């Protein structure tokens, strides 16, 4: 009864046994093993002793000085911040949004300028447009050297105001270059903080957002007009871009007058609720935002890799799962549906312990990890596999199900697996036709 296998099993059960969390039948079985195996009996004694020591470590109490110091600090903070007013919901949301806005500005600065101070807007060399005053609180302050950046004026009746950005004249883009377009990053981060987060929290409703959509269009057009541009073609371009989204509620956040494939176009960037994916900060939006995303996301993980994952999971799932045929995920359609029994899915680590039902699943977990490592060895996308390997069994199932809310709740960085949906449209300035 002292085989390696039973000792490995005992090693998993000793902890719950010491905690008194093992069902009676398993506890008796373990006790029998302990009485026959001196190595496990020693392990058990040490575990019990160690847990006993941990529970009796002395606690500390704040000294009077530490108490006073903390209270003083808190009072100073209380007096420096605006006195907590009778918060109504919008004010609370606005405060939360301000925090996010601050993060957004930092992220933009660091991302775009490597931490250096953003240069000030310069006069247009071409003289085609004259720059307007730049709102210091919003968006990136410059565009690439060949372009000029303008922030529109005006204030929205929203919890926070935020202005769209305009680059004119912009640069020329060749085939495929727009896929890596990043000049709208600042505006999108800004808009997430100013609009989508408050919207997700209920501080702004759909009517507010529809009004914001109109006002933002007006602002962009007004900014274009104020610098000698063509507001009518810009309006047309925004409408064309919005029409591509059908009924989906999106906000025009950035425009650039550019040349695409040799044609003069307006690039229109639309901000959407998934723009949180641009945050590199672990701050995450509430699950309801994620849940509202629907099937618009694009997966970074390749379809073939997903297929292998799904196939590899089959022995553990007891089914023949199918990977999606379209990387634009459509919710749960993998054939991996099953009852939540707590078997295996609750486990994170490879060494395994009994599940909620008391059944050890460590070997299955180990097999699963071994399968992932094998996949890692065969695939070239080691970076993606590295990210996949950080997921536990349950999280991989969530990934295959497209359960983004569940993954976010587990603390998984969704940006590892998703990229925001397409929100950039090139519209011919003359004809108003969508070019790309």
């Amino acid at each position: 009864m002292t085989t390696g296998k039973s000792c490995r099993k005992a090693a998993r059960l000793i902890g719950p046994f010491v905690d008194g969390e093992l069902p009676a039948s398993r506890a008796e079985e373990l006790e029998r093993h302990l009485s026959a195996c001196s190595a496990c009996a020693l392990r058990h004694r040490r575990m019990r002793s160690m847990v006993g020591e941990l529970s009796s470590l002395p606690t500390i109490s704040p000294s009077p000085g530490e108490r006073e110091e903390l209270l003083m600090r808190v009072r100073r903070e209380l007096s420096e911040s605006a006195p907590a007013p009778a918060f109504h919901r919008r004010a609370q949301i606005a405060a939360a949004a301000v925090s996010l806005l601050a993060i957004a500005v930092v992220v933009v600065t660091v991302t775009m300028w490597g931490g250096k101070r953003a240069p000030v807007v310069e006069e247009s060399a071409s003289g085609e447009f004259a720059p307007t005053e730049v709102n210091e609180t919003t968006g990136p302050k410059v565009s690439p050297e060949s372009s000029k950046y303008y922030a529109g004026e005006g204030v929205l009746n929203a919890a926070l105001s935020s202005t769209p950005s305009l680059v004119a004249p912009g640069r020329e883009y060749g085939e495929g270059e727009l896929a890596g377009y990043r000049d709208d990053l600042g505006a999108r981060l800004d808009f997430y903080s100013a609009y989508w987060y408050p919207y997700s929290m209920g501080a702004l409703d759909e009517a507010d957002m529809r009004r914001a959509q109109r006002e933002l269009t007006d602002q962009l057009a007004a900014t274009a007009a104020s610098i000698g541009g063509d507001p009518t073609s810009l309006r047309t371009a925004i409408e064309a871009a919005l029409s591509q989204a059908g009924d989906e509620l999106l906000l025009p956040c950035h425009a650039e007058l550019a040349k695409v494939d040799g044609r003069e176009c307006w690039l229109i960037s639309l901000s959407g609720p998934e723009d949180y994916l641009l945050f590199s900060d672990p701050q995450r939006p509430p699950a309801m935002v994620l849940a509202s995303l629907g099937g618009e996301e694009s997966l970074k993980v390749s379809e073939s890799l997903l297929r292998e994952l799904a196939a590899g999971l089959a022995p553990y799932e007891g089914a023949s799962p199918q990977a999606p045929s379209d990387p634009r995920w459509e919710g749960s359609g993998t054939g991996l549906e099953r009852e939540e029994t707590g078997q295996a899915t609750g486990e994170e680590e490879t060494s395994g312990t009994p599940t909620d039902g008391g059944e050890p699943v460590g070997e299955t977990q180990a097999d699963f990890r071994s399968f992932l490592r094998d996949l890692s060895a065969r695939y070239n996308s080691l970076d993606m596999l590295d990210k996949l390997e950080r997921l536990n069994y349950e999280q991989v199932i969530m990934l295959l199900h497209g359960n983004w809310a569940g993954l976010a709740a587990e603390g998984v960085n969704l940006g590892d697996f998703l990229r925001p949906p397409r929100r950039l449209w090139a519209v011919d300035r003359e004809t108003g036709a969508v070019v790309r």
Partner: protein
Amino acid sequence: MLLDELDGSERDRPTDEELVRDFLAGNGAAFEELVTRYQPTVMNMAYRLLGNRSDAADVCQEVFVLLLRKLGSFRGEAKFSTWLYRVSLNACHDYARKSRRNVSLSESPGDDLPEIEQRLADEGADAPEASMERAEVQKAVREAIARLPFKFKEIIYLHDISGYNYKEVAEILDISLGTVKSRLNRARNRLAVELRDFWEQMP
């Protein structure tokens, strides 16, 4: 330990959630009450996770300042205490990362305990030899904890040191019950490895 023990829900005093509501309505004293109520908890958590009293006091201040700023976004979906523990654990983690002050093997976490607390630690020992042995064991345990990865430290702190049960730990860390069990098992095994030399020397 029960998460309800501190929150005032079973005593004749305002609950945490009532204090939060009062604070958001403009009553600064309500926040001070929360500070008084939870300073020992946060201090202890930070002390065990960072291994240094002065760092623990710093983090404690950071936590409550952070709390002051974030309380407006507290949505009441979790208990206040659970939320506070999460904020505190994150703050400790950030602090450890930023300061890179993971205690090295040569340091001895706990050496800065005031004398009175060292004595309290030995309370109940019935002989000087036993008292010394006990202090030695505790020192070894503290040093071993200091060498653990943060993820293991926090789960050992919550379950084995603070006495929260599996379900409460799952709530605080926002992970499944199965994950609590497996992570705790791994953390303890790792701690046992760290203590192996010490056990070998024990009579």
